[in-house]
């Protein structure tokens, strides 16, 4: 994520700053099947990282170490990122299908 998402973020900004042609190259790659695969994977990895990070914050202050609470937290961290990824890509694909792009 630090490498692939970082490079994609830089490419997106640099392409937008370069001009419409460079940006359409970026968009063409991003909306190819490979682009979707990487995009969906990164979305999931990102929210997995974020959820684990929030769990770390909670545990850093010494909370949630009881066995049941701890296990519940671990389950939430596994399930919620999948749901968020699903919701985000349903939104994006619906938007693209409507021809908004």
């Amino acid at each position: 994520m630090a490498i692939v998402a970082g490079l994609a973020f830089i490419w997106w900004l640099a392409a937008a700053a370069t001009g419409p042609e460079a940006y359409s190259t970026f968009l063409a790659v991003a909306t190819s099947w490979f682009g979707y695969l990487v995009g969906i994977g990164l979305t999931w990895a990102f929210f997995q990282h974020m959820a684990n990070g929030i769990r770390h914050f909670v545990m850093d202050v010494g909370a949630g170490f009881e066995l049941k609470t701890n296990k519940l937290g671990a389950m939430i961290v596994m399930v919620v990122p999948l749901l968020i990824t699903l919701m985000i890509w349903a939104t994006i694909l619906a938007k693209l299908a409507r021809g908004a792009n």
Partner: protein
Amino acid sequence: MGSGTGLGRVRGLGSARHGSMHWWRQRVTAAGNLFLASWFVVSLLRLPSFEHAAIVGWIASPLVAVALILLTISVFYHLRLGLQVIVEDYVHEEAGKVFFVLLLNFYAVAGAALAIFSILKIAFGGVAA
């Protein structure tokens, strides 16, 4: 363990005593990322289109441009700290360790510089929408 002798520290043995600052900055940037990246994802989803004109018009507004720059700094600092720990944990040869941390520093600084320059160029009207 122990703090070692002065000579030992000169030879690179023992702690550099930067550990707790590394740990703390990792959490400071994590908190920054949490707010800024959430804003970023929600904002992208709320954009009417992902076309060039829409993206450039969005980035050009001051509040968006500044938030994007802060996001870039926080994210690239955070990933630099995180990947440094991976290198330190898994690259055992001293030369390789130095090489990869150096490479990581170059990547993080160059990547952030390119991203920030691009945001500023758009924000200062250097790109025809």
